[in-house]
């Protein structure tokens, strides 16, 4: 299993440096550097600890935040959702009793767990990071090994600061060439998922490379790694480079001065060696990728904006035919409809996939001086964190959005998962910058189309999908 020492992948390097114990024929015990928790998947883990009389081993390496069910409107109002309130109270109590840092809903640093980790510099290259949330893969953008776990494993990490794991296979995803104007990180990852399928990466940890990946900002890289799980791979990684180091310098939890330079020297070693072997390789060319729009009920059911809703008979496999038929029925779409003819009811720009500054800037740049179409019932902008919200307001983005008819909200998971009041009503259709278009994801019987922020902004203005490449005012956006 162990590759030649001089030809290790990034994944192997991080794995090897975190092995606490290895026994022949058994999975390894690996150390977890940072454990992120939120109100949704942690209460049962703390209850389990309590039942066994166990303690949180490293509260100093555990960070808690309220994000899934928080309101994106006025938080000074009483919480009407009693179940959500009980979860917030449980998190508060669990953190207080165990000594864990908590970003509660009124903290100025509150935000979506996968947004604030990197924003505060909690996330750093070479670490292992876990969280009871599948989009933990986001943190891999920094060259960390980061993946989602279930609640039993949350309990395991709380008690031991370790996880019992077997090595994954490795998947190399290369995106060559330059991204065309109007084609963003979101379009790259949707195109990748469209190519490999939503189970294509099962059993693998992905590492991304190629010019189109390397030229992405950290915000763009996080979008790519975030949706890695939608292709089945639990973790996606990008080797750290100058872009990474520049992003991290000066953030609250990042070392300073000489210690930062020493950290950078260590981080520079975090890349796959020349000649390292991957179990599978997938290659794409950015020049051939157009803006993407999902038409179905999983992220792999995706097309270029220039194409049409597929016919079930376009697929050879009987299971795919049935799945397509069922998806079109759920989505209320007819085979052969041009994607640009699909009307949109609501627009959601937010989520751990696309709610960072680059995303908001790109969308604001596009909507400035325009107004959302009359047919649009609601257009939400939900910054990923209060830090991002504050910075966006400094730049005047909130004014641009509200002048264009968008609602400017407080930070949280919001309509990506609809656990708060931000729910997509039955049979309504969204252009959403989130990560999942599963049945009922944004609300029962709701219809989700996943797109990039600039595509969502353009759909809000036009009332239907448009190919943003055909518009004059699309600059080189992330």
């Amino acid at each position, binding site marked *: 299993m162990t590759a030649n020492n001089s030809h290790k992948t990034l994944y192997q390097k991080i794995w090897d440096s975190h092995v606490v114990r290895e026994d022949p024929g058994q999975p390894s*015990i690996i150390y977890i550097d940072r454990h992120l928790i939120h109100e*949704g998947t942690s209460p049962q883990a703390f209850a389990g600890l309590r039942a066994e009389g166990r303690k949180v081993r490293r*509260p100093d*390496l555990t960070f808690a935040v309220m994000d899934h069910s928080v309101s994106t409107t006025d938080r000074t109002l009483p919480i009407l959702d009693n179940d*959500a309130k009980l979860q917030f109270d449980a998190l508060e109590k669990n953190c207080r009793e165990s000594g864990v840092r908590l970003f509660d809903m009124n903290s100025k640093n509150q935000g979506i767990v996968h947004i604030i980790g990197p924003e505060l510099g909690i996330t750093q290259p070479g670490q292992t990071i876990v969280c009871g949330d599948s989009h933990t893969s986001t943190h891999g953008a920094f060259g960390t090994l980061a993946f989602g776990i279930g609640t039993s494993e949350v309990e395991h990490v709380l008690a031991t600061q370790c996880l019992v794991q077997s090595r994954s296979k490795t998947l190399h995803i290369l995106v060559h060439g330059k991204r065309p104007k109007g084609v963003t990180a979101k379009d790259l990852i949707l195109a990748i998922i469209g190519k490999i399928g939503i189970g294509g990466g099962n059993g693998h940890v992905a590492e991304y490379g190629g010019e189109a990946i390397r030229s992405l900002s950290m915000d763009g890289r996080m979008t790519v790694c975030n949706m890695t799980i939608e292709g089945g791979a639990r973790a996606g990684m990008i080797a750290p480079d100058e872009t990474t180091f520049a992003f991290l310098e000066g953030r*609250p939890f990042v070392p300073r001065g000489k210690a930062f330079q020493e950290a950078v020297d260590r981080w520079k070693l975090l890349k796959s060696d020349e000649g390292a072997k991957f179990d599978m390789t997938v290659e794409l060319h950015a020049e051939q990728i157009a803006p993407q729009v999902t038409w179905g009920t999983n992220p792999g059911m995706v097309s270029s904006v220039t194409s049409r809703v597929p016919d079930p008979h376009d697929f050879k496999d009987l*299971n795919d035919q049935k799945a397509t038929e069922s998806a079109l029925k759920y989505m209320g779409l007819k085979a052969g409809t041009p994607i640009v003819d699909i009307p949109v009811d609501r627009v959601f720009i937010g989520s751990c996939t696309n709610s960072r500054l680059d995303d908001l800037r790109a969308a604001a740049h596009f909507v400035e001086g325009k107004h959302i179409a009359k047919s649009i019932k609601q257009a939400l902008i939900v910054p990923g964190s209060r830090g991002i919200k504050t910075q966006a307001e400094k730049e005047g983005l909130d004014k641009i959005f509200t002048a264009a008819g968008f609602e400017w909200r407080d930070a949280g998971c919001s309509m990506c998962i609809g656990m708060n009041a931000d729910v997509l009503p039955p049979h309504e259709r969204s252009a959403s910058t989130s990560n*999942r278009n599963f049945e*009922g994801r944004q609300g029962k019987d709701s219809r989700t189309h996943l797109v990039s922020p600039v595509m969502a902004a353009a759909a809000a203005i036009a009332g239907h999908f448009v190919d943003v490449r055909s518009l004059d005012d699309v600059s080189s956006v992330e």
Partner: protein
Amino acid sequence: MQPFSTHTGMVMPLDRVNVDTDQMVPKQFLKALTREGFGRILFYDWRYLPGEKPNPEFVLNFPRYKGASVLLARANFGCGSSREHAPWGVKDYGFRVVVAPSYADIFYNNCFKNGILPATLPEEQIEELFQRTEKEEGYSLTVNLPNQTIADKHGLMFKFEIAPSRKEVLLKGLDDIGTTLLHEPDITAYEKSHAATATMFDAVDVKYYSNGH
């Protein structure tokens, strides 16, 4: 955890690829504080019409599958969200075994924490089981973990693969945390040699509850 050795039970077919965990337990049920009671809401949106009236078109509500304890599924079962509420629901409903051609990684892993055996068989064998389940009312399977076999009473017998360490966890009903804590000295040694610390350099707006660390 409840150990698993052999199980005989009626099969319920779920003829759909890429069944995601959002379908097993939708988001409105993620606000619970306990692990119990998710069987009643398993596959909620498919299973119930408005007013929680059972949807007669959904397989779980077919009278012939009442009491099923083996869930026969298609490829990439359990994709999407990491919510362990999904396997809690599968288990609480009464399923002890899932049989599918493939699983999403996190769901697969979560099954072993809850005493559910996710058995993997090739597509052709899964297809054969779907056909037999369709044909014969009350079709049941005997799943034998020590021998790694799935058999029916007509002589069909398929062998399935499972990692030896996974098998042991289920057979013995091992408590993962207890097992890891047996190696506590190794964890301490690792911590000493790596000294992974989360040093806070700047004040951030966080409730910091120091408990002596």
